[in-house]
């Protein structure tokens, strides 16, 4: 199996940001994303998803290191101060590198 290193950027944040984020992820060069509904707790308190204003989403983007860095920088600049959000990166191997 010849596999290829990529980055996985995971973002947990407020559901209200979904449509904006999705647009930005694409415009910064990622080729796709995956979203699941989530709940949780962090600096901004309990977000327990009972209703819209308190719902989280968990966004995953597999991409190359530069795109990941660009996305992370963008998130830090635009969202880190005012929104409940944590982004984190990890290493993954993908099988069809041309997709990412």
């Amino acid at each position, binding site marked *: 199996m010849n596999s290829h290193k990529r980055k996985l950027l995971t973002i947990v944040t*407020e559901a*209200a940001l979904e449509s904006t984020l999705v647009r930005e992820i694409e415009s910064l060069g990622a080729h796709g994303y995956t979203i699941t*509904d989530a709940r949780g707790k962090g600096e*901004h*308190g309990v977000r*327990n998803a*009972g*209703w819209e*204003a308190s719902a989280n989403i968990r966004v995953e983007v597999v991409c190359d290191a530069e795109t990941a860095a660009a996305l992370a920088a963008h998130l830090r600049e635009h969202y880190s101060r*005012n929104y409940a959000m944590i982004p984190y990166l990890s290493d993954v191997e993908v099988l069809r590198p041309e997709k990412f």
Partner: protein
Amino acid sequence: MLDPVILFFVLGISAGLLRSELRLPTAVYELVTIVLLLAIGLKGGVELAKQPLGQLLPQMVGVVVLGFFLTLIAFPILRKLGRLQRADAASIAAHYGSVSVGTYAVAVAYLGSRQVSFEEHMPLLLVLMEVPAILVGIILARGVTRSTNWGSVMHEVFLGKGIVLLIGGLLIGWAAGPEGVTPLEPLFVDLFKGVLALFLLEMGLITATQLTGLRRYGLFLVGFGVAMPLFSAVVGTGAAYLLGLSLGGTVVLATLAASASYIAVPAAMRISVPEANPTLSLAAALGITFPFNVLIGIPVYHVMATLVHG
């Protein structure tokens, strides 16, 4: 005696405060909200079909002015008395200048079980009152000079779930007329109170979580969350009088004025005024003002309206 639908709200708050495992799935909350919004819209739309829209123009203009006015009054109070940051004050003011559909539904149920009739086109006024406060709130927070993407603000405001369903319901009711809507009544009319009961159960659970959030933000917000609706209700009652509304219509307009938005405005503020802390506004609107209006406010506004119409 309390309306049984209110008892569901009390059940929800109690279960929440006792940290019960009771929780409604998000999908159920959304279904219940969708049915309520469509039901309210349809009802109003059917009524609009019966009367020339032009005749309602004074009322339509009146409630828009009312929405602007209440927001502009709330802002300096929050800023000066509450010493809140500009963005927070603007956001909370917008919540209180706008309206809460849930509170409206409770007022409708309240009047219904007391057989007090009211102008059936109220849903139209409700829709009109949702929007102005949002625009004022954004301007108060950011000033007119700073670049605001008004296109996306308008999108956020007019294409949010709540407004689309209300306006959609209004238009469908208006186009279909009384007979056209009849086959839809088992869902949107007969089940209204039952669905409202489920809605209030969930609102109670949500309110309970907001109450714990409140502790951190001190007495000012609690006081504001009670005093502001009382003041707004007085203004609303006055406006209703000037606009020539019936007794029931006066109660409804006072309730609308007194209510604080927790769907449309939070969503719009989150995107347009991100530096405002949503915990503050939701704690006040949901933790204090919603239960206050539902449990105490509406009967008080009923008394107020009776005095005025005496």
